[in-house]
């Protein structure tokens, strides 16, 4: 394009005339910039998609379909001798309660003039399998009510619930043995009669997990307690140990190879895959120390080891941010080094340490892989812990492990619960991170 002897070439022309080469280069510039914008846009689009997927699929878990109806607690079925002997009443199994529900349905159909070909047994199949035991528990708790007619609110079966939420349609049940089109017609009639309705379901948030057969009854409450006890363990251990280790490394450690080894070690531990910590927990805490499997205490110990590097790194950063003049001032009035650290440096670094700890806890709260190895999945976490000791030692699940457990089950009704569980988990994470940001903003000090 240009002569080698006069290499100025086109550049010698007026700057008011844009050369072809400049046009090409500017086009390349615009393309490059567009790639950057596209990259950001893709990243944000992914975030939006993810949030949308979570919200759209998980919101359903917070509402549930209920059937409200009058059930006569027939004395003839529940207490044949009529003496209200609690031991004898307990002998009636849930099978003994099933007819009561059938009768209640027959009565509803009669009273409201609903036309259906369904037999009462098929009508009762609209309810969750937990309905009979719900009745039985009520009767055992209130034996004096036998003989009366009481209004009950039963969970609808997950298929019917899915029908109300749009997950189950007449087309999708073609090969489904658990529900048929007549039952859906019947459900429509019940909805019109105001007997079947979808309402907010607090039991999902505070309740316990349920077996494979009853997705409609499963809740995340007990797993939440498991997570809570794990986080308490993590907080109680990682905060003091992490702060102590950071104080040593930042304020007292001599510059020698041992300190170097410790520092390299900490930065490497921060990048070790979490599953490796699970293997460590399994080998050391369970196989060697024989601590109970599935216990939140063990989960907490494993997560402590995992969170420590994060907390140490952020704590050291906040200690480093306290200017040396503060230490000099304390030493200058005759304080020992230990006193200068504990009386002056540590309080000044506290907001930063707290922020780092909260972020570390949030990370630990969402961690799943190590929990799988120490047995926090594969069973139904059904009992609310009553004491702190029980909370730490009796088998439990944790929120992310519970979500994984639901995702593994075959019934799609559990998927909704898994997404719902994620919403709750994310609410916790968002609040913790917001708290950390607020703390940072509120107490951040510029020296």
């Amino acid at each position, binding site marked *: 394009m240009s002569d080698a002897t006069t290499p100025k070439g086109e550049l010698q022309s007026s700057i008011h005339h844009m050369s072809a080469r400049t046009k090409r280069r500017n086009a390349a510039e615009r393309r490059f910039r567009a790639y950057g914008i596209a990259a950001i846009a893709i*990243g944000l689009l992914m975030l939006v998609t993810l949030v949308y997927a979570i919200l759209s699929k998980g919101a359903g878990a917070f509402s549930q379909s209920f059937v409200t109806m009058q059930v006569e607690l027939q004395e003839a079925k529940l207490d044949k001798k009529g003496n209200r002997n609690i031991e004898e009443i307990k002998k009636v199994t849930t099978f003994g309660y099933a007819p009561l529900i059938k009768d209640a349905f027959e009565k509803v159909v009669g009273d409201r003039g609903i036309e259906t070909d369904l037999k009462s047994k098929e009508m009762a199949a609209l309810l969750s399998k937990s309905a009979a035991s719900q009745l039985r528990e009520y009767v055992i708790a209130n034996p004096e009510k036998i003989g009366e007619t009481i209004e009950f609110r039963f969970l609808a079966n997950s298929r019917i619930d899915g029908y109300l939420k749009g997950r189950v349609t007449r087309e999708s049940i073609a090969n489904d043995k658990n529900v048929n089109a007549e039952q859906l017609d019947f459900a429509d009639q019940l909805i019109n009669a105001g007997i079947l309705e979808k309402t907010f379901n607090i039991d999902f948030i505070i309740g316990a997990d349920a077996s494979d057969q009853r997705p409609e009854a499963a809740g995340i409450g007990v797993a939440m307690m498991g997570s809570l006890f794990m986080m308490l363990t993590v907080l109680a251990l990682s905060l003091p140990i992490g702060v102590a280790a950071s104080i040593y490394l930042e304020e007292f450690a001599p510059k020698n190879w041992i300190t170097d080894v410790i520092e390299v070690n900490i930065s490497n531990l921060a990048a070790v895959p979490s599953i490796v910590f699970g*293997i460590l927990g399994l080998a050391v805490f369970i196989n060697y120390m024989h601590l109970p499997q599935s216990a939140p205490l063990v989960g907490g110990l494993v997560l402590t080891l995992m969170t420590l590097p994060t907390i140490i790194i952020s704590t050291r950063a906040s200690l480093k941010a306290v200017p040396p003049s503060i230490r000099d001032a304390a030493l200058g009035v005759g304080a020992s080094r230990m006193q200068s650290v504990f009386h002056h440096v540590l309080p000044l670094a506290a907001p930063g340490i707290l922020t780092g700890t909260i972020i570390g806890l949030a990370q630990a709260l969402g961690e799943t892989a190590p929990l799988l190895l120490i047995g926090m999945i594969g069973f139904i976490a059904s009992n609310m812990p009553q004491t702190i000791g029980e909370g730490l030692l009796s088998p439990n699940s944790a929120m992310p492990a519970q979500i994984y457990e639901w995702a593994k089950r075959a019934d799609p009704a559990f998927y909704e619960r898994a997404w719902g569980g994620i919403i709750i988990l994310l609410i916790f994470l968002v609040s913790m991170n917001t708290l950390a940001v607020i703390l940072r903003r509120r107490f951040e000090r510029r020296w």
Partner: protein
Amino acid sequence: MPVFWLVLILLALAVAGYFIGRIRAVNSVGGDSRVLHSLPVYYGASAAISVLVPAMGLLAIWLLAQPILVERSVSGMIPSSLIPDGANLNLVMADVRRVAEGLNVAVQQGAISNEQARTLRAETSDIRAVLGQVGVALGQEVRPEVLRAAQSYRNLSASGALAMTVTVLALAMVGLGVSIRISHGQFRARNVVERVILLLLMAAASLAILTTIGIVFSMLFESINFFRLHSVSDFFFGATWAPNFRGDSDLSILPLLWGTLYISFIALLVAVPIGLFAAIFLSEYAGPKTRAIAKPLLEILAGIPTIVYGLFALLTVGPLLVSLFGQSGTLGVNWMSGATSVLTAGAVMGIMLVPFVSSLSDDIINAVPQSIRDGSLGLGATPSETIRNVVIPAALPGIVGAILLAASRAIGETMIVVMGAGAIAKFSLSPFDSMTTITTRIVSQLTGDGDFSSPETLVAFALGLTLFVLTLGLNVLALVIVRKYREQYE
């Protein structure tokens, strides 16, 4: 919970020591605390420390050492004839422990007396039935040797616990006595207390090393056990992964490694261009406002737990890909048969790694001095020419380090592959095939009902060790590169 009570007693002694030490020191100078070498509180603290620290230390060591010693002495009682083929001593020892625990439960619930528990003979009574009554289920009849070993296990543990209580309490009392003797005005209590605090701080810092040692040794021992049962060459160089819980499995890491690397490669293919371009845009083009909004938003992606990505892969991305590439899919190509595949897991993992790559690269690009950019712009280069020809080459070592760190993350990632990648170990080139990874297999081998003496379970430790070495290597390499890079501009 005798240990719990022991600790409580120690704490009570320490509190007592605190007040005695403090009062004695103040009294020794006639109540004028200004004459003391240190503040009164240090005299109390030094007394409490000398009660607590040696006794607690001994307690901890004892608790760790006793099980080893007891097991070693008891395992001598098991004749080798009792160990079935293909199993090892651990299996029998697990039985012994279970029986011993069962006896404890039975005594606690009053089903048998302590004396009976000691003298029961398998020949004369049905141990299984006895333990069954109290809710301890045993898999098989208790053999006489096992029962005797279990009884000996109980006896040794009980006498060990007694000896421990006595020794620990004695040590605590000695500590109390000594500390009371030395609590007088001239004693340099603050120096002693600060020394002990310093030692505690050091202990906390060395926990990091202890964790690493714990990780390495816990996996190393079990890996050695595994390689006793399974050939090393098959593990590292075999071509098939086919665990079979009846024994005689093919357990080679190569197919798993292939799956792991393939998925990580796809993840990086997604994450590196997006992350790098995002970082370039944010650090070189975006104004402060765009940056203040886009950067934290992108970083949310890094804060989302992996279980969420796993679910997203399994329930959203997988079905979406099937609807595109599967049978009767939009593209009509029928390449994909199930929702789990290399592409599913890789793409989702890529999303997770975007902020990881972008924030690391952003830091690194920002570390390139502005003067070099000015030099290039001053010569008439466009911003993109400056970035491509000057900034990126200058930042390259750091960016390579960031990518290595991301690769190490991808290789060690568990939940996304457990839920999104599938369970079939094979060498395939198609990204639409379901494949499995090292982490997936660790989870599946350790969450089954396998016992810890079969190669099918132990292989998980060998896999874990390989994974650890692999990621550690990548991390160290990355850290070295990044550190070198930073030094260049400092």
